[in-house]
């Protein structure tokens, strides 16, 4: 699936004191993701690629993806970072395209969840 056990943990943290907790966290994730994805897109247009900068962005994205349980997005982040460390520009570009697809699918699934 697209969401792992961490998402279940978020649901368990939702209670009468935090009735909209999951929705709030997901909203924060969307906002932060949009920023990071834009930064990465722009960074991938620069030649030569600044792998350290890209790795830093993806490190952040992986952290936030992990926190909401976005399993497939997290996996693509890890792969992207492996390509960054190897200095593999083509691998980074290819993985980023896949990551964006996984992210788009995740958003659709989350939208369905909140309806």
């Amino acid at each position, binding site marked *: 699936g697209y969401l792992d056990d*961490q998402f279940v*943990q*978020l649901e*368990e*943290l939702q209670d009468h004191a*935090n009735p909209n*907790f999951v929705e*709030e*966290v997901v909203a*924060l*994730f969307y906002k*932060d993701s949009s920023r990071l994805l834009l930064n990465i897109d722009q960074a991938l247009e620069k030649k030569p690629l600044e792998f350290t900068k890209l790795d*830093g962005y993806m*490190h*952040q994205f*992986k*952290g*936030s993806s*992990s*926190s*909401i*349980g976005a399993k497939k997005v997290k996996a693509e*982040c*890890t792969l992207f*970072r492996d390509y960054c460390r190897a200095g593999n520009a083509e691998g980074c570009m290819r993985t980023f395209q896949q990551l964006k697809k996984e992210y788009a699918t995740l958003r659709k699934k989350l939208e369905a969840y909140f309806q």
Partner: protein
Amino acid sequence: MEGATGNNGGKGEHSKQGDSVRKLTALVMDDPICQRVERALLMSLDVEAHGVDNAHDAFKLLSEGRSFDLIILCSILPGINGFMATRMLRAMGVQCKILGLCGLTVEQGRQAFLDAGADGYYEKPIKAAQLIPILKEIDPNYQPPNSRA
């Protein structure tokens, strides 16, 4: 710096079962999403959790006299990173437990946090099962909410 130290090194005299209980306090230094989740987790464990998204705000709180039983910080922070922030917290005289968090487990990250003076290092997302033993080290009388009679 006064007020910047953690509490009594975890001797537990502040919270005793059956007496008026002082909650453990924690400061989370992380991006807004992770901070929200980490704070909610700590609060579910009955820890009063405060959050900042950068080291400067943390230093400001501490210099104003706030103290915490636990500080949790991410390796990536805007401006001063988590490793440097840990060094600076220790240099300020902060003695409480400090845990480093990273988005990816790498030995260099773990060692960098430990070398900077952190007490532990975890890959995100940190779990209750990882926090509870730490809270018990801080306060031997600490019991997580679900385990209380």
